[in-house]
């Protein structure tokens, strides 16, 4: 048996060695990475980001060179910290903190020590760079904004965070990425593809040639330039008009669905999010939870549309054949639709479709709505019929436009009402507030604008979009696809006439622009806020929708000004001015312009001061009306959906 000892030891020992080797080579895969870290140096070549132009070829966003100071912590040697800090104007504590942070990311891999130096800072540093072993400069291109508006459209450029790196392996720590706006949506096109060069390093960290003869190296692909559908002139003008106000403006070219202007207020100069002050400024913007300048109200704020929604009530009534142009309803300063329930109205006398629209008569549209819902014995079926008509205007759904944020809005259907009234038979009367654009209906400004574009087109729309041209590439086919509504073309004529008469005899008669036939509709939304525990009524939100000219419309527009008062006070004038600016390139209604520019709602907003986003703000829409008993039935649903929009 003694013979067997040595062979046994040999076989056991060799097996143990193989197990360990197998573990090192096959099971544990951290060594591959470590090997790359210490033997391969990766150098990126960042291509220039594509430029952004407006619809007329005006340059909006270009690039400027910027220099990041990179650090490889383990290669820092004999650093004169004092001189280094002085040169770059950082404090010692700051320096230590940054180095510690870089070390946590990786002691071997480069991290950004100080981002986005300008040319002179770079020059000063470059002169002495040989003294600072472990540091080097990486050139990148930064955005250079040619205009001081459109921040919400462009979005901004930021460093990728860990979550993005994990999700998209393309990005490495310190890389830049577009956030919000077209920079985010068209990131892949604007960014291009960075080039990579692999170098073989030796143990002294010297480069000793390219890795595998450059087999894996790639050449940078530059970003492509894009043209937006935005008209720089009216975008700028819209933002100017919205100074000292909060809200949103969306203008669309009805024939194409191209977004002409997308204004949110308050906004900021896009240039403040570039350079070394970027993170400080971003924090300021981010922390302002009341004015919330980073929140794009034109896309995200869901408001009850109020009176402009009456347009759809009228159209659905005509399509369902429950009314015609001449159907008349009486209004007695309101409408008693059930015992003890009364909807107030400023009008009086008989109303038909035409003056129903231009007087914005609640009683008229409440009656129309009752007929729509009453058409079928099966109320849920009737509700869904109405709901489908409304949805065919692009409401209550994500519209599919090419911007990264958005909200669905809300169009109720029978399913929703089954939830709200689980064991109660509701009727048209129960949900009558839908007739005048309140109740459960919610819309974003872009949806309002799209609704107007659809009306202007007499029954179709193209998905709103902001991309006009990508160099060398056709834009997405979905933006060429016509969406037709469920309303027949013939029914639009009388409604459009009504909207036109809003300017002739109605709520916007003071807002006419000579020589331009505008069709529009005012809207007003009541809103309340809890200040110091007390429910306080704030100034109403001012809403206006319009398109022009009446024949062959070129622009459809929706305006929403928070706490702006009646629709015709601020939103209406803005609509007239924007339309004139777009169609004529100049302003004749100087009086209107002066008035709008002079209006500051700061005092109104100051009342909200000290409140944060989560505070309860209640909004109910109205058009010179209020709904009795409204609160009893709707409070819960309305407050839930509107809170965040203020």
């Amino acid at each position: 048996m003694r013979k067997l000892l040595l062979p046994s030891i040999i076989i056991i020992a060799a097996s143990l060695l193989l197990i360990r080797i197998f573990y090192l080579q096959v099971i544990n895969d951290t060594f591959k990475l470590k090997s790359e870290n210490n033997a391969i140096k990766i150098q990126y070549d960042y291509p220039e980001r594509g430029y952004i132009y407006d619809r007329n070829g005006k340059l909006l966003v270009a690039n400027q060179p910027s220099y990041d100071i990179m650090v490889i912590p383990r290669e820092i040697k004999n650093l004169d910290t004092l001189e280094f800090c002085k040169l770059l104007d950082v404090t010692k504590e700051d320096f230590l903190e940054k180095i510690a942070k870089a070390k946590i990311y990786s002691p071997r891999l480069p991290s950004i020590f100080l981002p986005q130096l300008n040319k002179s800072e770079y020059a000063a540093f470059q002169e002495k760079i040989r003294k600072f072993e472990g540091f080097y400069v990486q050139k990148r291109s930064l955005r250079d904004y040619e205009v001081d508006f459109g921040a919400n459209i462009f979005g901004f450029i930021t460093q990728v965070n860990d979550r993005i790196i994990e999700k998209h392996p393309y990005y490495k720590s310190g890389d830049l990425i577009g956030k919000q706006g077209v920079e985010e949506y068209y990131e892949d096109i604007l960014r291009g593809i960075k080039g990579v060069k692999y170098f073989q390093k030796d143990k002294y960290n010297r480069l000793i040639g390219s890795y595998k003869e450059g087999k894996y190296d790639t050449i940078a692909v530059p970003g492509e330039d894009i043209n937006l559908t935005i008209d720089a002139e009216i975008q700028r003008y819209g933002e100017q008009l919205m100074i000292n106000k909060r809200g949103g403006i969306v203008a669309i070219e009805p024939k194409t669905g191209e977004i002409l202007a997308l204004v949110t207020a308050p906004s900021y100069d896009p240039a403040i999010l570039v350079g070394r002050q970027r993170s400080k400024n971003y924090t300021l913007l981010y922390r302002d939870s009341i004015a919330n300048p980073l929140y794009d109200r034109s896309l995200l704020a869901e408001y009850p549309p109020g009176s402009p929604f009456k347009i759809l009530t009228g159209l659905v009534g005509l399509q369902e054949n429950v009314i015609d142009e001449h159907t008349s309803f009486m209004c007695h300063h309101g409408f008693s639709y059930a015992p003890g329930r009364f909807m107030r109205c400023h009008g009086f006398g008989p109303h038909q479709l035409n003056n129903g629209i231009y007087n914005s008569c609640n009683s008229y549209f409440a009656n129309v709505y009752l007929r729509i819902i009453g058409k079928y014995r099966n109320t849920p079926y009737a509700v869904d019929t109405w709901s489908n008509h409304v949805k065919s205007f692009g409401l209550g759904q994500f519209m599919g436009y090419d911007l990264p944020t958005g909200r669905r809005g809300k169009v109720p259907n029978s399913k929703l009402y089954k939830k709200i009234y689980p064991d109660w038979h509701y009727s048209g009367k129960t949900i009558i507030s839908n007739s005048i654009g309140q109740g459960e209906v919610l819309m974003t400004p872009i949806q309002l604008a799209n609704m107007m574009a659809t009306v202007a087109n007499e029954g179709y729309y193209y998905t709103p979009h902001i991309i006009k041209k990508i160099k060398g590439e056709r834009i997405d086919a979905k933006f060429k696809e016509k969406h037709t509504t469920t309303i027949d073309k013939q029914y639009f004529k009388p409604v459009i006439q009504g909207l036109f008469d809003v300017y002739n005899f109605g709520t916007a008669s003071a807002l006419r622009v000579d020589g331009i036939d505008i069709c529009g509709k005012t809207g007003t939304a009541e809103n309340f806020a809890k200040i110091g525990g007390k429910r306080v009524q704030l100034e109403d939100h001012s809403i206006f929708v319009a398109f022009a000219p009446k024949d062959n419309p070129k622009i459809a527009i929706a305006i929403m000004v928070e706490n702006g008062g009646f629709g015709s006070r601020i939103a209406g004038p803005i609509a007239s001015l924007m339309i004139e600016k777009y169609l004529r390139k100049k302003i004749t209604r100087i009086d209107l312009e002066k008035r709008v520019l002079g209006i500051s709602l700061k005092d109104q907003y100051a009342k909200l001061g000290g409140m944060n986003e989560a505070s309860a703000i209640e909004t109910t829409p109205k058009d010179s009306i209020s709904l009795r008993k409204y609160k009893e039935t709707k409070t819960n649903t309305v407050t839930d959906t509107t809170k965040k929009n203020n």
Partner: protein
Amino acid sequence: MKNQSVKKNIDWICIIIYSALVIMGWLNIYSSSLSSPEETYQKQLVFILLTIPLIFIILAVDGKFYEKYASVIYIIGLLSLAGLFVFGKTIKGQTNWYSFGSFGIQPSEFVKTATSLAIAKYLSDSQINLKDTNRQMQVLCILGLPILLIVPHDPGSALIYCMIIIVLYREGLPAWYIWTGFIAILLFVFTLIFEPIYVILFALITTIIVYFKSRLADRNIVASSILFVLMSGFVLSVDYVFDNVFKQHHRDRFNILLGKTVDLKGIGYNTNQSEIAIGSGGWFGKGFLEGTQTKGGFVPEQHTDYIFTTVGEEWGFIGSLVVVGLFVTLILRIIYLAERQKTKFSRVYGYCTAGILFIHFFVNIAMVIGVFPTIGVPLPFFSYGGSGLWGFTILLFIFLKMDANKVNEW
């Protein structure tokens, strides 16, 4: 017609494996030397070519010569080691070189063969019985002398000779030597990992269990107590020696291995880099001359003691498997051949050859993959170096000559 009989009777399996290992070794040295300015692969090629006449000489010499002059060879070997104290040249902290101009020779590589011959010669006397304590002492003396001479220069290499104990066990050395060695190693490792007091407690419990598990007739309270006291004394002295006698770099080698110290730039650098190189090889490796770690020269001493890292990195697990497989086959083949020897002399010598090759192979690879303290032991036939290559070639081919000659030994 001697030559013809050698050609006919020599074990070609061993020769093929030997040649394969030498050639593979050279390819890996070639790859790893691309990162260094020295052209070690050219020198190694010369060394390899010179083994051819060397082999012919060994095979041409009469088979009886080695047995006849074993003692003389042994004494020359000892003298050459002793001479190092006077004429030795210090390279990398080890005074185990004679230098002749640009050419150096490492006598310890040849003393392995000399000692094996001496042990085989001693045991070949049929009168010798290793059950006899005197005989045990004598054979341990033969083994101990070269160890004593090597320890001052290169304590790690002394470990090589311990392998001969297992050969002696095959020839009748009492089993308790092996057990003592085994328990000593176990206690040594435990003492390094745990506090001595726990190890002593463990020894006590084991002793008690063994005592009560054994048959009544075998129980000896006195012997067990003495055994326990000896173990405790050993544990305490290991602890003492480790803390007070070992130098810091010796302690570091153990601490790194046990994960007590992490210092990837200093003393842990070697092991860390060699693990990275091997670990990054994956299943199939990065390909010949494509190893990034090898090219970057990250692994120190890569062409000598750390040559296996190149195998691991460029040839992957498959390559490692082949190399380990060839070594195991060669060593087992030698044992098989040794067992069929007609004379005790050649059997013992064959066993010594297998043992020495095995311990080098095992310690070297275990060190490179980070499961054994750093000891400067080359990988036979693979590592760069003329003395090493020739030493192992002589060791192996003397045995192959004996094996080929066995027909003539009637």
